[in-house]
Structures are given as structure tokens and as C-alpha cells.
């Protein structure tokens, strides 16, 4: 007898027709004489598929609930009347099912005949040729004729909607199976599609019968993937044809870390299809991951190393060896002149673990100092600090799937529908099932408008008052006796708890007293605290709206306090969940990028730790922490820091107080930039080393749930080298030998030196698909949920988090508070997405402001406005929006010419120097021309593109310079 109850046993390559059921009660039935046992609630269609009996189907797909509309999956069941659809019929004990006989064959052939009578017969020239379920089913049922002819009423002349840049909608091919509509509802949760009309007039419609681009569609592509015909089809497939092989890899955009099948023709990507076997995304994706991969082959890609003596000179194209030698000689000369600590390196959260590991190793072992840092400095460094101090590990506690067991979901300073869209879809699924939602954010984020979810609580606090808010929430928990005493007694440090309890019970933390600070009515705060504390499972998700503050670390600890006090740690459905911005933020932190920690968060001052690394690396390691990124800038400006190696980061655009950053970069005697494009930082560089995109290399990324996923090379590196090879070359040229043939060997080295990675290897990753660290002898398959038994530091530590007001306060001169963030279609500094058709959604950064603030300043939608802070001024177009609270304005930083970071200041988190991007006091006024900085930016940008062109022309190649933004 066949037994199926473990969903892991199914193949992600097959479609079993309806979703898996997880009941532990097994039901036994017979299908075509084969006995099979499956979980209760499984459909007959799925049970048959598990027994490798493939019943014809069209409207069914195993990522969607059964719908029963096509009738193709009809079966005969002994003792039952008629021919029921197997997709909507659940299995029963003792059931005897027949899937093929002449009666069924006739019925199916009739069904297909009707479908085909209103379908174009252009199979040979159809883009879905070779990948069409309708065609497959016509074959499966043996359709030989269409007796109705093709002259009757039909939809064959329906017009194609080409409005979306990535896919087309050709309704003439539509069979109205509703899979696209259900995918939009069930998988994505946007509800942008519907079936309009009845009977023969039924048709798929976007929004209110609009073009896709004009509707609420977010272009996630779930509908395209669900479509069984070529009605919804990737334009890349229409242009190029069907792929001939595929490789499973990991997306290089956000911290969700979706698995994809890169579907290929030779070394050309035809399309990216989210991989059903991916444990982070389960076959779903967003507009970036699925569609925005064209940047990898954009003409702006750097293909040749370049060098120059100073930044006002044209670039000179050279070979790899010359460029590496030039860089190494410069670094050595600078160290000889200014000292060992005068140089440093920045690792990338976009590169792989192995590449990040090598860059920090290069700094520590070849530069012989600890001046290494990563862009996590400017996003989640407070998470590392705060969670290590309270829970003992610098990482989120859960899997993404854990949200499906959460009863109260608290989202603080995060905008998942834009920044972590695939996880947001899963969260919305749970919200539709009835979980409570509490959003703590100055802005009315889209999650609050989740279709089919009611009663969301929105604590719209003033920017910069997070800690006051989290203290007020904790005050309610403790003063109203809602704490989990048993958990606290068993799992937390007693004296620390008592001290915290005394602190948090102080009347100044009551919601009534805090109301004046946060602007949130006390009753709302009390209600939210009760909702979270009383829920069977309360889960907190947070983002950069927590960390990017002068009290970012305090807020992370405040969140941990709340979870500890309510016992919401150590099982599924709960936890403290940082939503990481970039694909490998978690990994870059794990790999020892921070100046005070070796890989695995092991402090450089620990002699036992250093001894192990010294033995492996063969050099002494400095026992003092190195400089963090902002400290490097300060030291550069004051003349002590002279050279920097930057891999895959664009600090000139992403870091705050642009003018200070530019001054620092201009102060360097040698700036080495390794990137796939001439980014803003590279315009200040002396050595340009072409990087490789995620499609061109092997390695691993670690996502926000600590999941290590494989990145697999699908095409050769455009410039001939993967990024890790370049670092190896630089180390060797500096006289520190590094020898690796493949990133797998780098991971093996990481595993020997990092206690939480001892069980990780490429072979193990291939075997398990992915691994959530820690993975070692105690947890050979990794650890999905952390802190189940105890904490790495033994007992949970409550932290005293006194609210200290930000120095960035609104006043008469700067009466508004600016907060920055990102949107769905663009990614971070935009270097990748700006070079794709995602520009169709967001081709400029705008300033959002409340109608009252706009009216007060005579600003209308679309006007140019100058935004001035104590750091600088920039000019953007205004968007009047009531999702902003009065007094708060918002912009994104996806386009370099926008200069969002010209206005952000050097105010930063007290513990980690993470910049306070989320609070800048500003004034906004109507203007008629770009700011001084913007005019300087434009002329400098023009000059640098000319200097790049100079280098390329000299080598006889035609450049293609991108105008990032006007």
C-alpha cells in the first residue's frame, strides 16, 4: 500500500492538483485498483496524483484551492451517483475510484471539444507551444474533431492587453478557468482580478475592466504562472520561445530569499519561475524577483577592469592583472606611509556569504586590521546588538511559515507589502484566516488595507517615539498582570526581570503619560497591548522603522522585552522577527563583516577565538575592533584613513549626509570599487573592478529566517571573474596567499571556524535544499525555531530601555519630520531595478506630504518642492497623500539624483551608529529649480560618464551611459 503523509515526499516539479492536507488521520482508499493512504481532507485528484495516476485537469493546480469548474477531472466512484469532479471530492475510507473508462473518456472529450470550439487553433505559432496544458489535455483525452465548427459566437477577436511591460494578456486564448483570479486572491492576496459577466460572456478582468497597468495589479506574476494557456504569458517567452533547461537558484533582491528556477536557453535567461520547493517562498514571487532580472545583461554592465590616478582623469581599461597589481601597490604604499590602520574594506549584503567572508578575511589577514564593515551597519546593526544582548543570538527567532500559526501579528516600522512582498502575501493569508493585526507606524501602510481582513489596529505614532511606545505597551502588560509568569520564572534572569519590572511599572511609562510623546491615544495602546499579550500566539515583525533611529538598539531590546514578558518565544507562531532589507544582510553579519566580530559573532578580543582563526589563517589578528563605516568617513575627512575597498555597495548613494560621504570619498588616496555598474561610489574611485551578478556565480545567501540557500551559476561572469575570485587575486597580490577553486571550499573553511555553521556544506545544502542555522552536531538539519529549550546565553535578559528623545526634533525652522523608505518596484539604491522595466512604476522619487501640510505651503500635487534639513537641501516633486499623518513627509532613495540622503543627517543609533534615516527635521517649500547639490551632482555625473566613455573609447568600444535620474 502507498502511504503519503509527509508533504516533503512530494516532488516540487509536479502539480498534484490540489493543496496538501496536513491531518495526521490517514484515510485509505482504492484508485484504479491501487490502495493508497492519504491525510484526511485530501482530494481524490491529489490522492490519485500521489499514486502516480494523473487525472486530466485544467482548472486545478496544487497551489490553489479546488474550484471544480472545468469538469475534466471527473471520476467514477463506486456507490456514488454521477461523475463527480475529483478536485472537489475529498477522500473517504474504503472509497473505490475509477479514473479511466469509456464513459469518462467521452465526457472529457466533450468538455475539451467545447473548450476548443472557442479557442484559436494557432498552436504551432502560439508562445505556449510546448508548455500548454490545454494542448496537453486535448492530447490526453484524444480530441480528434470539433463538431460545433468555429463560426458561432466566440472570443477569438478579443484584444490583447500589452500594458504590463513584462507579460501580455490575450483574452482570445482564455478558457476562463479562473486560475489567474484565484492566484491573485489566494497566493498574492491583492484581489486585482475578477471574472466579469455570466455564462458565455464571462471574462477575466483586471480592476474594473481596466488595463493591467491601470488596475491594482502589483505585477507579481502569480497569474502568469497559474495560466494553463498562453493567455497570460511572459513577453520574454513570446520573444524568445520556450526554455530548454533550468537551474535552481536564489533571488538577489530582498531578505525573503525566494528560490527560483532560472529557465534558460543556453546561457540566456528566458524567465525566472519561483520554485515550488523553495522553503521561503513556496513557489511565489514579486515583480522584482520574477521579472526584473534584465539588469544582468544591461549594456551599462562593466566588463573590463579600469584604473586612474585621480578622479578627474579618464578611466583606462586594463587587464585584470594590471588592475589588481595597481590596487595592491597602492594599498601597500598607503599602509607604509600612513600606518596599518589607514585602510579598510566594506563587504556587501548583496554578495554571497563566501564573498563576504573573503572580504573580511582579506581585511583582517592581508590588511592586518579590523577595519571591515558592511552595509548592515546602516540597516540592521541594532538587530544584531539588541537581540544578542537579550536573547543571546543576533538573528530572528522563526521561520516565515511560523506566521501561519500567529494569532496576533504586530508589525512595527516595516512595510512588508513593498519591501518583503512574498512574505507579506503569506502574512495576508494568515490575516484572512482571522489573525489580529497591529501596525505601529507613522504611515498608513498597505497591509492595513488587506482585503477580507477587518479590525486592524493602527498606532500612528510620531517618528522617533518608538521606545516610548514599546515601553507603554510593556507597561500595560505588566501593570494589568498580562505577563507570562511561568515563562519568565523558568526562562529569564530573575534579577534582571525584577529591575526591569520596577522600571517599566513607573507611571511615566503609562499610555496616558506617553500619549503626549507618541501622539497615540492611550486607549489604543492599551487595546493593542491586550491583544498581543492575550493572544495564544503573538508574533512581532519589524523593519528599518525600528532600527534606523537614534534609539534603534533600545527599540530592538524593547521588542525582545515584550516577547519575553508575554512568553512569545520558543515555539511556532510567535517570536521576534527582523525583516531584513537586502538578500544577504543576515549572512553578511554572520560572516564576520562587523569590525568587532569574527565570523559567527565571535568577538575579536576573545583570545581563544583569535587563536583558532590565527591557526587557520596563519597570521596574528588584531585584538581591538576596527572602524565602522561612519567612523571610516570621519577618519577619512580628518586625514587618517586613506584607502577603501568596497565590494558591491553604493555608499555614496545609500549612506546618510551625502555631502559628508562625498567629502570622505574625495579624501581617499585609493578607492577600489567592485561593482556590476559604475555606481555613485565608483565615480570617486581609482580602481574599478567589474563585479558579477547573482546569475554569474556560485555561493549562498542567508535570508531573514537564517535560511542558507544556494546561489547557482547559470551564465559565465560577464567580465570573466566571480567576485570571490577578485578578492582572492587581491589577497595574493598583497602577499597574503588565498587558494580556492570553488566557493564550496570557502564554505568548508567557514564551517570549521563558525560554531553555528559546523554542519553546513554544499553537499548538505544540495541534500536538504536549504538549512536554517545553527546547523551543527546538536542540530544536524538546522534549527527552524530558536530558543525552544533555552537561550544561547542561558536565560533571557530583560533590558532597561529608557526613552531618550531624538535630537532631530521639529522646530520653527524645520517644522516637519522626514522619514525615508522604499517601494515595491524599486530596490534600494535602484542600481538593478532602474535598469529594468520596473521604471514603468516608479521613475522618480517623490515627496509625499499630507494635504494640510501641502495647503499650508501652497503646494499642489506634482509641484517641485525644496526639502531642507540642517544637513542639506534637495528638490523633488510633491505627491499629496492622506496616508501621511500631518507633520510627517516621506520619500524614497531609489534614484541618485533625488538626493534623499543629502537631507538625512549624521544622527545615529547610540549603540551601533546605524543612521537615523527615519527622523530628519525638515522644511518644505515650493521651488522652481533643482537644488545646488543636484546641479553639482548632474555636472559631476556628466563628467564621470564622460571619463568612463573616454576609457571605453580608447579601447574601441561603444559605451552606453545611463542617465540615472534628471
Amino acid at each position: 500500500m502507498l502511504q503519503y503523509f509527509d508533504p516533503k515526499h512530494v516532488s516540487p516539479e509536479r502539480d498534484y492538483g490540489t493543496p496538501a492536507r496536513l491531518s495526521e488521520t490517514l484515510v485509505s482508499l482504492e484508485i484504479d485498483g491501487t490502495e493508497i493512504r492519504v491525510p484526511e481532507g485530501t482530494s481524490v485528484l491529489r490522492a490519485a496524483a500521489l499514486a502516480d495516476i494523473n487525472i486530466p485537469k485544467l482548472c486545478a493546480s496544487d497551489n490553489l484551492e479546488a474550484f471544480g469548474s472545468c469538469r475534466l477531472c471527473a471520476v467514477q466512484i463506486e456507490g456514488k451517483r454521477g461523475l463527480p469532479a475529483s478536485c472537489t471530492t475529498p477522500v473517504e475510507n474504503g472509497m473505490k475510484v475509477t479514473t479511466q473508462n469509456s464513459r469518462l473518456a467521452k465526457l472529457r472529450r466533450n468538455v475539451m471539444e467545447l473548450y476548443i470550439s472557442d479557442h484559436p487553433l494557432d498552436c504551432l505559432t502560439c508562445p505556449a507551444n510546448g508548455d500548454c496544458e490545454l494542448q496537453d489535455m486535448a492530447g490526453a483525452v484524444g480530441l480528434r474533431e470539433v463538431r460545433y465548427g468555429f463560426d458561432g459566437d466566440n472570443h477569438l477577436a478579443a484584444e490583447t492587453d500589452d500594458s504590463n511591460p513584462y507579460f501580455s494578456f490575450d483574452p482570445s486564448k482564455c478558457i476562463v478557468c479562473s486560475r489567474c483570479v484565484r492566484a491573485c486572491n489566494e497566493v498574492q492576496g491583492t484581489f486585482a482580478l475578477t471574472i466579469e459577466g455570466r455564462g458565455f460572456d464571462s471574462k477575466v478582468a483586471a480592476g474594473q475592466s481596466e488595463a493591467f497597468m491601470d488596475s491594482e495589479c502589483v505585477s507579481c506574476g502569480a497569474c502568469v504562472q497559474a495560466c494553463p494557456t498562453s493567455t497570460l504569458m511572459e513577453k520574454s517567452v513570446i520573444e524568445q520561445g520556450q526554455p530548454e533547461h533550468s537551474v535552481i537558484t536564489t533571488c538577489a533582491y530582498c531578505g525573503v530569499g525566494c528560490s527560483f528556477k532560472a529557465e534558460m536557453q543556453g546561457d540566456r535567461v528566458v524567465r525566472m519561475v519561483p520554485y515550488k520547493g523553495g522553503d521561503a517562498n513556496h513557489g511565489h514571487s514579486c515583480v522584482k524577483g520574477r521579472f526584473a532580472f534584465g539588469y544582468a545583461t544591461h549594456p551599462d554592465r562593466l566588463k573590463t577592469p579600469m584604473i586612474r590616478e585621480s578622479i578627474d582623469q579618464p578611466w583606462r581599461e586594463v587587464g585584470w592583472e594590471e588592475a589588481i597589481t595597481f590596487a595592491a601597490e597602492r594599498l601597500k604604499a598607503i599602509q607604509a606611509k600612513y600606518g596599518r590602520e589607514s585602510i579598510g574594506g566594506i563587504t556587501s549584503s548583496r554578495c554571497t556569504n563566501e564573498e563576504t567572508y573573503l572580504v573580511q578575511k582579506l581585511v583582517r589577514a592581508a590588511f592586518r586590521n579590523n577595519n571591515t564593515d558592511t552595509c548592515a551597519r546602516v540597516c540592521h546593526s541594532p538587530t544584531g546588538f539588541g537581540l544578542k544582548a537579550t536573547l543571546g543570538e543576533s538573528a530572528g527567532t522563526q521561520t516565515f511559515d511560523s506566521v501561519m500559526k500567529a494569532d496576533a501579528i504586530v508589525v512595527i516600522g516595516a512595510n512588508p507589502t513593498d519591501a518583503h512582498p512574498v512574505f507579506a502575501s503569506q502574512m495576508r493569508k494568515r490575516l484572512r484566516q482571522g489573525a489580529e493585526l497591529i501596525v505601529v507606524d507613522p504611515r498608513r501602510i498597505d497591509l492595513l488595507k488587506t482585503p477580507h481582513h477587518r479590525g486592524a489596529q493602527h498606532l500612528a505614532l510620531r517618528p522617533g517615539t518608538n521606545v516610548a511606545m514599546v515601553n507603554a505597551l510593556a507597561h500595560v502588560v505588566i501593570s494589568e498582570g498580562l505577563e507570562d509568569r511561568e515563562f519568565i520564572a523558568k526562562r529569564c534572569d530573575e534579577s534582571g526581570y525584577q529591575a526591569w519590572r520596577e522600571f517599566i511599572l513607573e507611571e511615566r511609562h503609562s499610555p496616558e503619560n506617553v500619549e503626549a510623546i507618541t501622539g497615540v491615544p492611550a486607549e489604543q495602546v492599551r487595546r493593542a497591548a491586550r491583544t498581543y499579550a492575550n493572544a495564544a500566539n503573538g508574533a512581532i515583525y519589524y523593519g528599518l522603522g525600528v532600527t534606523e533611529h537614534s534609539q534603534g538598539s533600545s527599540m530592538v531590546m524593547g521588542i525582545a522585552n515584550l516577547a519575553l514578558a508575554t512568553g512569545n518565544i520558543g515555539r511556532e507562531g510567535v517570536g521576534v522577527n527582523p525583516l531584513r532589507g537586502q538578500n544577504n544582510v543576515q549572512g553578511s553579519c554572520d560572516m564576520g563583516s562587523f569590525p568587532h566580530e569574527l565570523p559567527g559573532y565571535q568577538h575579536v578580543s576573545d583570545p581563544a577565538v583569535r587563536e583558532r582563526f590565527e591557526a587557520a589563517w596563519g597570521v596574528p589578528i588584531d585584538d581591538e575592533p576596527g572602524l565602522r563605516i561612519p567612523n571610516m568617513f570621519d577618519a577619512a575627512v580628518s586625514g587618517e584613513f586613506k584607502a577603501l575597498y568596497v565590494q558591491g555597495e553604493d555608499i555614496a548613494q545609500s549612506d546618510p549626509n551625502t555631502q559628508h560621504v562625498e567629502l570622505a570619498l574625495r579624501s581617499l588616496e585609493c578607492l577600489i570599487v567592485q561593482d556590476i555598474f559604475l555606481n555613485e561610489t565608483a565615480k570617486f574611485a581609482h580602481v574599478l573592478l567589474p563585479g558579477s551578478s547573482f546569475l554569474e556565480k556560485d555561493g549562498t545567501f542567508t535570508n531573514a529566517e537564517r535560511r542558507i540557500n544556494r546561489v547557482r551559476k547559470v551564465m559565465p561572469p560577464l567580465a570573466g571573474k566571480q567576485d570571490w575570485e577578485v578578492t582572492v587575486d587581491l589577497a595574493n597580490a598583497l602577499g597574503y596567499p588565498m587558494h580556492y577553486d570553488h566557493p564550496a571550499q570557502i564554505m568548508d573553511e567557514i564551517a570549521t571556524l563558525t560554531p553555528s555553521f559546523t554542519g553546513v556544506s554544499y553537499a548538505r545544502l544540495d541534500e536538504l535544499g536549504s538549512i536554517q542555522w545553527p546547523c551543527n552536531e546538536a542540530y544536524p538539519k538546522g534549527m527552524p525555531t530558536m530558543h525552544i529549550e533555552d537561550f544561547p546565553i542561558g536565560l533571557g535578559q530583560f533590558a532597561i530601555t529608557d526613552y531618550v528623545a531624538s535630537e532631530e526634533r521639529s522646530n520653527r525652522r524645520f517644522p516637519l519630520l522626514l522619514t525615508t523608505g522604499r517601494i515595491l518596484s524599486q530596490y534600494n539604491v535602484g542600481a538593478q531595478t532602474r535598469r529594468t522595466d520596473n521604471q514603468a512604476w516608479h521613475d522618480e522619487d517623490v515627496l509625499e506630504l499630507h494635504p494640510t501640510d501641502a495647503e499650508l505651503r501652497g503646494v499642489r500635487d506634482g509641484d517641485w518642492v525644496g526639502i531642507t534639513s540642517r544637513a542639506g537641501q534637495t528638490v523633488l516633486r510633491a505627491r499629496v497623500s492622506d496616508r501621511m499623518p500631518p507633520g510627517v513627509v516621506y520619500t524614497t532613495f531609489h534614484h541618485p539624483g533625488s538626493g534623499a540622503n543629502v537631507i538625512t543627517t549624521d544622527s545615529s543609533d547610540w549603540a551601533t551608529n546605524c543612521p537615523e534615516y527615519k527622523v530628519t527635521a525638515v522644511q518644505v517649500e515650493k521651488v522652481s529649480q533643482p537644488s545646488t547639490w543636484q546641479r553639482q551632482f548632474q555636472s559631476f555625473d556628466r563628467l564621470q560618464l564622460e571619463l568612463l566613455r573616454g576609457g571605453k573609447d580608447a579601447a574601441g568600444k561603444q559605451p552606453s551611459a545611463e542617465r540615472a535620474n534628471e
Partner: protein
Amino acid sequence: MSRSQLDTLIHMANQIAINNAHYADAAERIHTHLKKFWARSMKHQIIDYLREDGSQLSPLARQAIEQLAQSQADARPASA
């Protein structure tokens, strides 16, 4: 506009101090923080400033930096 490097360090030290002020062992915590997270050159600069002037440092920050000066002066390599 930007602060000078030393002004930034003074500001950072005071910020660390005020964020830990509520602990009974505040000075020791601040000292540990500086020891664990500040680069050698930053430590030297703030210690030098304390010795030469120190007027812009809060009393708690000053106390912690005095401890830092002591622990840095103590025999190396004793930084566990």
C-alpha cells in the same frame, strides 16, 4: 554640515551614557560598550580628550572613559 571627528566621538560617548544611565552599574556598562565596540584610534582620541579637557562629556561618560583609560593602560593583551 558635519561635526569634527572629535565632536562626533564626544557626542557618541554622551549618547551611550544617557542610554545606559538607568542601570545601577551604568559606568561599567558604558565602559564595556566602548571597549567592545570602539576602534583603537577612537578610544585613544576620547581618552586624550578626557585628559586634556573633557568638559563636553557628561559626568557618566567621563567616569566610563576614566575606566576605559585604566583598562587600556593595563597590561595588554588582557582584553578578554
